[in-house]
C-alpha cells in the first residue's frame, strides 16, 4: 500500500491561513491504514486547524469529509457540490488523490495534507517499511523476494558493496543490508547460484526515469468510452 505521513500542523497552517472556507478531505484506503489521512485523521486535522484559527483569532469555516478512494473520480465526485462551496480543499490522501482531485473538481485549489512516503508493508501494527521501488521491471524472482532497488541503499543488482557491517547497511546500523538478506535467503531456498549470473545495466526507462508512466487496458477502457458515447446519444434523443 501507499504509506504517508501527516504534514506538521505548522506547515498546514502556513499553507491555509489566508483561506476562509476549507474542507479537509480524507481517503479511506491506504492512508487510513497508516493512520495518516483517513476520515478519522481528516476530522482530527480539521479540529486542530479550527483550534489554531481560534488561537490566532481568525474566522474560518473548516469542514471535514472523506471518501473510500481518492484515486478514482467516482468515489469523490458525489461530493462535488460540497467542494464547490470551499476556498480550498486540503486532501489527506496520498499525492495520487491530490493530483486527481485537482484535475477533476474545477478551479478549486487542492493542497496536500500528507507527505506521501513510499510503497510499504505493515510487518506489525504501527510499523511501515519500504519494500518495493515500483521500478516497472520486477527482479524479485532473482533476489529471493527481497527488492534490491529500494532495500539496498545503492540499488545494486550484482551483490553487496563493501559497506556491509554485521549484516547492516553503511548508512545506519538500524538498516538491514538488503544483499546480506538476499544471500541468506537464497541459501535457504537452495538457489544461491542464481546470484552468480551478472545482471546487465538495468533499463530504468520503465521506472520514473522514463517519464510519466501510463497503462491502458484497452478492452476495458474502450468499454467505458462506449458507455459514455451511448449516454450522449441517449441524451441527444
Amino acid at each position, binding site marked *: 500500500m501507499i504509506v504517508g505521513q501527516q504534514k506538521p500542523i505548522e506547515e498546514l497552517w502556513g499553507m491555509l491561513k489566508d483561506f476562509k472556507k476549507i474542507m479537509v478531505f480524507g481517503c479511506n484506503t491506504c492512508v487510513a491504514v497508516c493512520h495518516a489521512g483517513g476520515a*478519522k485523521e481528516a*476530522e*482530527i486535522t480539521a*479540529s*486542530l486547524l*479550527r*483550534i489554531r484559527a*481560534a*488561537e490566532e483569532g481568525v474566522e474560518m469555516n473548516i469542514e471535514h469529509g472523506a471518501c473510500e478512494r481518492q484515486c478514482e473520480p467516482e468515489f469523490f465526485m458525489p461530493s462535488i457540490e460540497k467542494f464547490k462551496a470551499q476556498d480550498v480543499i486540503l486532501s489527506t490522501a496520498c499525492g495520487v488523490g491530490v493530483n486527481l482531485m485537482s484535475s477533476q473538481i474545477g478551479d478549486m485549489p487542492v493542497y496536500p495534507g500528507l507527505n506521501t512516503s513510499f510503497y510499504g508493508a505493515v510487518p506489525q501494527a504501527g510499523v511501515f517499511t519500504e519494500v518495493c521501488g515500483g521500478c516497472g521491471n520486477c527482479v524479485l524472482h532473482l533476489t529471493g523476494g527481497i527488492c534490491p532497488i529500494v532495500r539496498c541503499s545503492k540499488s545494486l543488482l550484482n551483490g553487496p558493496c563493501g559497506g556491509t557491517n554485521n549484516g547492516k547497511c553503511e548508512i545506519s546500523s538500524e538498516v538491514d543490508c538488503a544483499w546480506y538478506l538476499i544471500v541468506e535467503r537464497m541459501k535457504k531456498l537452495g538457489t544461491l547460484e542464481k546470484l552468480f549470473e551478472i545482471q546487465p545495466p538495468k533499463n530504468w526507462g520503465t521506472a520514473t526515469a522514463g517519464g510519466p508512466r501510463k497503462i491502458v487496458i484497452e478492452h476495458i477502457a474502450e468499454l467505458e468510452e462506449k458507455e459514455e458515447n451511448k449516454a450522449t446519444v441517449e441524451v441527444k434523443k
Partner: protein
Amino acid sequence: MATVAEAPGKEAASMPVSTPISTIEKPNEVPTNWQPNIIAFACHYCAFAAADLAGVMRLTYPTGIKVIRMPCTGKLDHIYVLRAFEKGVDGVFVAG
C-alpha cells in the same frame, strides 16, 4: 489510571517536572477566583462508580467539572478530546 491533557494556551501543569515551563511558553496570568472548566471522561465500571460512591458519601467537587460516563475509557477517541477543547474546556480528565 488518570491522564490530564491541558487546553492550549493555559497553564502547562502536566509538563514533566524536569522541563522548565518558561522554555516552552509563558503561562497566562490566572485571575483570582478563576475556576477551570474541566471535562471528565469516566469509565462506567470504575471511575464513574467511584464518583457515584463519592456522591453517596456526600463528598463535593467544584461545579466546573462535568463528568461524562463512558462504557470504557477505551471508547475515548482523539476527536472527543479535540472537540472538548474546541468547545472551550480548560482541561480534560480521563479516568478509568
